């Protein structure tokens, strides 16, 4: 499945209309993303790198309608021929969790703390498909095995799992309906180095196995080489560089790219020294 984003602008604040009270305290508009264009081809794994605050999460959330209405999104984002920008909340909800799966940075603040994880993995199935209870349970068990957790984990609550296990649950939630596009927003940032590696390997294997496309968001160049064939560098809301990941890593042409690569190298170096 392909995703083609063209001239995407995202602004926050300004006039949301309607209420008088709000209009009188009209805040100045803040530009979060400016004229961003990017594409993910069918079965391609694409990286999006940028420093913290550059607007990576906003990019992922805005095209899928995950932002509140006070955020203004314009431009175009086409998912296999379907325009996403300007779609109704219901249209976008129908796509999320079925055609597109999300994995978030911190499963600790995204998994529902009071519901067993099996029920949460089941959610996208319930929303989009009419399956029997046994059917759903079977699929959840199979999915849990796939992400390297036992089927018995289904009855556990998030707080009973480690960070790495929680992120495996996060991946299971995203992949249960076999979506053809996965958007992973810094899925390994909250994890330690060893677990990061495992999760990245798992994700790549599952995405390839399912024949899906992947948009992998990170600020850490060091994991990118493993994940993405092609990458974009985002800086203060603008794409400043694009190219195949190996080339980008070897000699970045933008300042932002250079900084991120240097930071990744220094980190890797520091890690090796400390061993």
């Amino acid at each position, binding site marked *: 499945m392909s995703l083609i984003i063209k001239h995407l602008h995202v602004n926050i604040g300004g006039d*949301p209309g*309607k*209420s008088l*009270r709000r209009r009188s305290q009209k805040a100045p508009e803040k530009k979060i993303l400016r004229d961003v264009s990017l594409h993910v081809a069918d079965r391609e794994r694409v990286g999006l790198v940028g420093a913290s605050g550059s607007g990576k999460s906003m990019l992922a*959330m805005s095209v*899928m*309608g*995950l932002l*509140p*209405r*006070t955020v203004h999104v314009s431009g175009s984002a086409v998912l296999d021929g379907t325009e996403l920008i300007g779609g109704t*909340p*219901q249209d*976008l*909800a*129908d796509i*999320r*969790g*079925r055609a597109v*799966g*999300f994995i*978030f940075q*911190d499963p600790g*603040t*995204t*998994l*529902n*703390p*009071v*519901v*067993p994880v099996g029920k*949460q993995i089941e*959610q*996208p199935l319930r*929303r*989009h498909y009419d399956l029997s209870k046994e059917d759903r349970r079977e699929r959840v068990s199979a999915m849990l095995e796939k992400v390297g957790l036992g089927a018995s984990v289904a009855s556990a*609550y998030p*707080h*009973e799992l480690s960070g790495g296990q929680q992120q495996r649950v996060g991946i299971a*939630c*995203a992949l249960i309906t076999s979506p053809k596009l996965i958007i992973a927003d810094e899925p390994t940032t909250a994890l330690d180095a060893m677990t990061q590696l495992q999760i990245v390997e798992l994700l790549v294997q599952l995405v390839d196995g399912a024949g899906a496309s992947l948009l992998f968001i990170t600020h850490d160049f060091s994991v990118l080489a493993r994940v993405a064939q092609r990458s974009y560098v985002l800086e203060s809301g603008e794409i400043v560089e694009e190219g195949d990941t190996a080339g980008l890593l070897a000699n970045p042409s933008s300042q932002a790219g250079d900084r991120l690569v240097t930071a990744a190298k220094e980190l890797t170096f520091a890690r090796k020294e400390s061993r």
Partner: protein
Amino acid sequence: MLKFVVRRLALFCVALIVLSLLVFACLRILPGNVAAVMAGTNSTPERIAALSEQLGLNRSYPAQYFQWIGDLLHGNLGTSVLTGRSTMAETWQRAQVTLPLIVLGLLLSLVIGIPLGVVASSHREGGLHSVLRYVSLTAGAVPALWGGLLLILVFGRGVGLIGIFPSQGFPEDGWSSPASALVSLALPALSVGIISGAQMMRYTQSALDGIAESGYITMAMASGSTRARAIRTTGLRIVLPDLISVTGLSFAQMITGVLVIENLFSLPGLASMLVTDVGNRDLIKVQSELMLLAAFFLLIGLLTDIAHRVADPRMRGVGAESVAPAQEVSA
């Protein structure tokens, strides 16, 4: 969980004992001899002495206390010296008015408050949000007496604009004619229910507003829900433990509200019994009634705490101790 219930039950018993001592001590430390107060200002010394004798008030305090507690535990609340009726029988009869009234009021409060709170929260960016907010603020600030009067003026049979509900009294034969009993509780239950429902709505809304832009809602949306739906399902489930606590509180609040409402609607309930007995200075009976009331409050607290635990898996089971400090911080 079991450990928690046992510990909480123990606490419940300790609190009951402390309260009973308090109630007992209050009536005896207060100025004036209990028998003299009960006999009235114009009674002869002989009458006071006889009453003291009859009530066992000339025995030692510990003897009186244990006698009283022993009777209470056997469900024996004594007979009123003033009316000669069994306190237990009267309490039971009046509870059949008050308890249904409280339960009805609470149900109304939940049925009004929670859905409106959800609607208000899922329309956070529209005008409906502010409208509902003002409505709930206004309705929540209305004193029960005033609200009850207003309801009588609108719906009271004989006085109101749309006189469809009785506004005074309760059927003589009680619940043996369920329809008329229920109808006579309609306006009183609405009076307490609407006010408490407005508070419930404000609470639901602000609890949901607090998590409406959280990762939990984003995650639910990513699974295929619209924001409104995510707030309605995931959001409501996440704030459920807090809503349970608030429900327990409004239950307790409602008991006080009912005191006013029963008198306004001339309902022969527990509250009006308490008021009458205090007026008649039937102190020994008041002592038992206060004790029952306190036990009821404590029981609600106990049940609320347990339900809260059940609804929040983070507090259940082995990990309970390690979660406790975090809960204190958030509280």
